[in-house]
């Protein structure tokens, strides 16, 4: 872990491999996340992205926002293509390149989960990132299994009936060397996690909370505010699981104390996608948040016991 307290301490802060002027919407979480990820990984990085917003915002041919090798891929093929790239480069004696998949929540939690699970089980030496904007944005805001309960999408007119799938937990259950959650509201924490992932062998999974103003019906300038409130309300928890050891990180650490957590209403009511929430929905979402923290507590107390 670096001990940087401020963004301006980040080395090469002004150098961008993911170039400004790309076609992301104003306030796009994906855009910020990728910029920070590349700052940490540096230029010896090869990226594959399955069908998603990222496929489009890189620029319509022949324009190109990535200043590093970047290939598009079929929707379900993100993890497998990265696997092939890793082995192809290895066969040619090239092992100093970070091979990374950068996929949306649809490409990860739905159509791509089989390929991701396979790559994880095989221990393939890649970084797999899910930038989670909680719906299929590229095709016009349809629900994914990562869409939270109550969120309106173009296929959940009255709000989604089911809870969000907990993919980081599923990935942790694969016993891979590194699983982390991150958020664009805590860029230093995100940066640190990529720095760490870069040096670990095996499959590293990083799941990034990435607001999408048009999809979430929020003003562009409020996307970081929303991401911050996700953390302060305890709805999004920053943690990492390194070789099986669970650790709260960054801005989430203090919210282990339930009294410090802000009401989830503060987080939900500023987003248009939650405008149809009923009182029951609020209660249900609160229960959901508490269950996430119960899991955290379980992990931590179990580890404490083990240490004794």
């Amino acid at each position, binding site marked *: 872990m670096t001990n940087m307290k401020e963004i301006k301490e980040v080395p090469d802060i002004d150098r961008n491999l993911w170039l400004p002027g790309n076609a992301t919407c104003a306030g796009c979480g994906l855009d910020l996340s990728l910029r920070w990820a590349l700052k940490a990984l540096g230029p010896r990085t090869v990226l594959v992205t399955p069908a998603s917003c990222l496929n489009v915002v890189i620029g319509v041919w022949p324009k190109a926002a*990535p200043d590093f*090798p970047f290939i598009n891929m*079929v929707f379900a093929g993100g993890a*497998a293509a990265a696997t*092939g790239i890793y082995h192809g*480069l290895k066969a*040619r004696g090239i092992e100093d390149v970070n091979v990374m998949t950068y996929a949306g929540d649809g490409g990860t939690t739905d159509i791509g989960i089989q390929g991701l699970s*396979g790559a994880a*089980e*095989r221990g393939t030496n890649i970084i797999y990132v899910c930038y989670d904007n909680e719906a299929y944005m590229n095709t016009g805001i349809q629900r994914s299994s990562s869409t939270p309960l109550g969120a309106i999408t173009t296929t959940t007119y009255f709000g989604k009936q089911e809870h969000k799938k907990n993919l980081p937990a599923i990935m942790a259950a694969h016993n891979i060397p590194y699983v982390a959650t991150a958020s664009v509201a805590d860029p230093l924490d995100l940066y640190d996690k990529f720095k760490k992932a870069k040096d670990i062998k095996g499959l590293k999974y990083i799941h990034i909370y990435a607001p999408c103003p048009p999809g979430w019906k929020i003003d562009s300038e409020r996307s970081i505010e929303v991401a911050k409130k996700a953390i302060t309300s305890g709805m999004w928890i920053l943690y990492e699981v390194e070789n099986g050891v669970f650790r709260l990180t960054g801005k989430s650490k203090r919210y282990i104390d339930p009294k410090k957590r802000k009401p989830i209403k503060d987080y939900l009511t500023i987003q248009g996608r939650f405008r149809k929430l009923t009182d029951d929905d609020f209660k249900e979402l609160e229960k959901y948040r508490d269950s996430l923290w119960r899991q955290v507590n379980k992990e931590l107390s179990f580890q404490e016991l083990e240490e004794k």
Partner: protein
Amino acid sequence: MSEFEGKRLVKGNFAASYAARAANVQVVTAFPITPQTLVVEKISELVDSGKMNCEFVRMESEHSVMAGLIGASYAGARTFSATSGQGLLYMAEPVHWAAGTRLPIVMTIASRGIAPPWNIWADFSDIVTQRDSGWLMALLSGHQEIYDSVLMAYKISENPDVMLPYMLAYGGFILSHTSKPIHMPKQSLIDEFLPKIPKLGWDHVFLDPDRPIMHGNLIMPNTTPGYQEFRMKIQLAQLKAKPIIREVAKEFKETFGRDYGNGMVQEYKCKDAEFIMINCGILAKQMENVVDFMRSLGHKVGMLRLRTYRPFPTEDIIDAVKHAKIIGVVDRATAFGSPTGGPISSETMAALHNDPQTKDLRVIPFINGIGGRDVVTQQQKRQFEILMECYDKGELVKNEELMSTTYWTGAMGVK
């Protein structure tokens, strides 16, 4: 002598594995499906026992098999896999991506019938589903040809004028699981025959942080050159592949002494034949005996084996059959709703129609051996007899096997 050189008794599937080894493939991804399994089992054994030097990745599905090969090929590696039937259907989407990216991947297909009902026996309907994907395709007829075709495929695919992936199909079980002696050439000769793998990756796509490129992003319909031109280039590469396939077959014969016709088609007694049957795969090989027998009865018959399916050997067929009185085309595959119900017969008709030398040549379509159903020489003899009768009468001969304009040899009539 090494176990990989000289004469050996091998199953058809092992011929594919040994050839992949001989071709020095660098990455193999695999997922099992009957009747392909032995191909990748053998490679797994060879890699684990240190007899084959390549990255072998046990994927969790065929979709990932092809996406993985695409990744490895983008990265500049020589790649190989094998599949069958349902597996090929499951990987359809990346199959098209591989051709669109112009990656010289080689994949053998132990062809099988498409379900339902479940079927695992010889039937080329599986590769027919991918025939317009941009892949080069060959239909093979023997164990030796499987081995040899893998070597030829890399040479053709990696030719800078082609740069298209290659599918090599042979009948499941009938070839995949039977054993025959094959001859494996000296490695040094093979190394000399094959192209060198470029040190810095392929010329047109590479993943090199020192030369960053982006590939595959969205392109607007009216950008020129653009999508339409990229697609035209795939068809152009298919056309350019024809002389290269012929050239490689010739060079192969000169180097290793084995004859695959002109690479596109292989004639059997066609030169003076009045009645010619176009056939493919193992049933074409079997039909050679029938041709000999018919000739012993005084009938001037011949057989043309369609070896290359993509690019379609239009000129080669016209050249070989233009003097015939009538021709038959035998499919071991279905193309439902097409003019004849058989893929090769439908395409042959289209191909002949546009050439003044063959535009009036009558084509009689046959379909047989579907889902591995037996086709015996008696039935192939009957196919020739029907062909001759149709010519004599000037109309289709009615029988139980005739449905619309196509004879479904060995089938019960259906209502």
